[in-house]
């Protein structure tokens, strides 16, 4: 299998649903097709947090991957694997391979959000990588999810496991992003660092990245791509312009408490942009309150998207 080209945008896609809370296959196909056609998009991620993975059944996750692969026009699809334990993660990874995914995005097992034993992370990653064929992208969680986030030495250790090809770097903080980025550059230069710092894309790109894999790009793949390229070209003025344009939208989606609504806001925005028919979320997530819908609309207008 030829190595994936990570040098660009990998939108972490939302999962369109019907009114009956089932996968809306047609809408998913349409949305993936749209994303795949945006210049600068190098692949699609499905079954991530923006895709509400933890609320999807195993069968639904398979369906999402199959539809995404069929609609991606040959671009690689990376499927999130977000499970409770090692055995389940391996099963889901094999599902992803059978469905045509080119790699998996491996989330920390859920219990680590509460507490994690020393040594458990490398053991988990070794167990999964040695049981599957697909390469693995490490999901570095926000630092506020303290026990499920990897300290820099652990992250470097994970990056050195055979089969690991990239890190989705989402510490939600700039200082930690830099520490991880530099440490990975120095100790695991073959592993791609994919910026996923939704709120801090501009500054994280300035620090450095090999590509960008992020939920916000499911909403504005073209702007995120342009920002990433502008920083890569050293064009600070252009980058600042794009950042300024997106900042109100970033703050509306990611900063307004409760952040449990961040993916709902993404879907609502997509509805307003005409790319989704409805913003239905899997329960327990609730519909977005009207005043929040207004805020999303205002932010889209400020970004000259509406």
């Amino acid at each position, binding site marked *: 299998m030829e190595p994936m080209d990570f040098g660009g945008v990998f939108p972490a896609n939302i999962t369109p649903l019907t009114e009956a809370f089932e996968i809306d296959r047609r809408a998913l196909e349409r949305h993936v097709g749209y994303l795949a056609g945006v210049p600068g998009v190098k692949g699609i991620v499905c079954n991530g947090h923006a895709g509400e993975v933890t609320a999807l059944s195993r069968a639904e996750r398979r369906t999402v991957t199959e539809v995404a692969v069929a609609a991606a026009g040959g671009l690689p699809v990376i499927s999130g694997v977000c499970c409770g334990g090692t055995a389940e993660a391996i099963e889901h990874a094999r599902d992803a391979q059978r469905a045509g995914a080119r790699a998996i995005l491996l989330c920390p097992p859920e219990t680590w959000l509460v507490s994690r034993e020393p040594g458990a992370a490398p053991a988990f990653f070794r167990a999964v990588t040695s049981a599957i064929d697909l390469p693995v992208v490490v999901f570095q969680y926000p630092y506020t999810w303290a026990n499920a986030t990897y300290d820099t030495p652990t992250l470097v250790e994970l990056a050195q496991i055979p089969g690991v090809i990239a890190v989705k770097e989402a510490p939600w903080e*700039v*200082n930690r992003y*830099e*520490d991880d980025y*530099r440490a990975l550059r120095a100790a695991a230069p073959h592993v791609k660092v994919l910026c996923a710092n939704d*709120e*801090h894309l*501009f*500054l994280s790109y*300035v*620090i*450095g990245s090999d590509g960008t894999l992020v939920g916000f790009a499911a909403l504005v793949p073209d702007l995120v791509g342009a920002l990433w390229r502008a*920083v890569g070209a*050293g*064009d*600070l*003025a252009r980058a600042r312009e794009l950042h300024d344009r997106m*900042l109100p939208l*970033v*703050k509306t989606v990611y*900063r307004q408490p409760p952040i449990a609504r961040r993916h709902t806001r993404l879907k609502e925005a997509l509805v307003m942009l005409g790319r989704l028919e409805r913003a239905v979320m899997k329960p327990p997530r609730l519909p977005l309150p009207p005043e929040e819908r207004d805020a999303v609309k205002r932010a889209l207008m400020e970004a000259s998207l509406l």
Partner: protein
Amino acid sequence: MNLHGILPACLCPFTPELALDRAALASHVDFLARQAGVGGIVCNGHAGEVSSLARAERVAVLTTVTETVARRVPVIAGVSAESTAEAVEHAQDAEANGADALLVFPPHVWLRMGKNERAPREFFRAIRRAVRLPLAIFQYPVWTRASYSTGQLLDLTAIDGVVAIKMGTRDMIRYETDLRLLREHRPHVAVFTSHDEYLLPTLVVGADGCLVGFAAIVPELIASLFAAVQEGDLKAARAHADRLFPLTQVLYHREPFGDCHSRIKEALVMMGRLPSAAVRPPLVALDDDERRAIGAVLRAAALLPR
């Protein structure tokens, strides 16, 4: 008063017996005042171990600094006290002894106890009534209870005589939000980044300069970084940031963060710029491992005397 550029927060040298070493302080500050890009000297700050200095010693530090600097650049005196009455005394001392401006610390009791919404305004007003000197606000990290909200920052900067902010926010969205509001509503207020350990991102967002202890050891490197960002030269800025990073790591990325000034003193001794690295209790001396690590970084960065 037009504060701009690099404002090093100077160290406070002690003899091995922990007395103030005024000669070493003069030599230290003279060196800083001579560096291109330095727009002022800050004394009696955290880097100057202000909480370990008696009232008379803070005056002694200030007079040594003002005599040495001899008006080459403005001298800003830290005012750090637990009560308003004490803060006023220190402020009056500073005015009587040649300070050009004051850097007002939040009372540290706020860190543990929180503060009434109205307390910061009253605190600053009391100081303003007592002295005619321009005032700079010290903004602490957002996760501390001594940090000022966006509303409070706008409130405080509306006070006549408040001319600058040392922004130590450590949350890039808040930093940028506050900066934009200040630029729009308080254009006369100079904003200095206080993010020793991640200067580049804050400078890219925007700042009138850097007010940091880090500049007491490598003022010229930080001045180069600042200039590169001002010129929009991302490539050069990154090169300077790359050069700074190993030093940032060894000084600021180890726990506890609070030993950073002990580390800077050790580094300055190794560089031949301070005679003693003695710090006042409750700070404790660094262990040999740390000293070796600092020495190794200085050697690799060609900062040790030949």
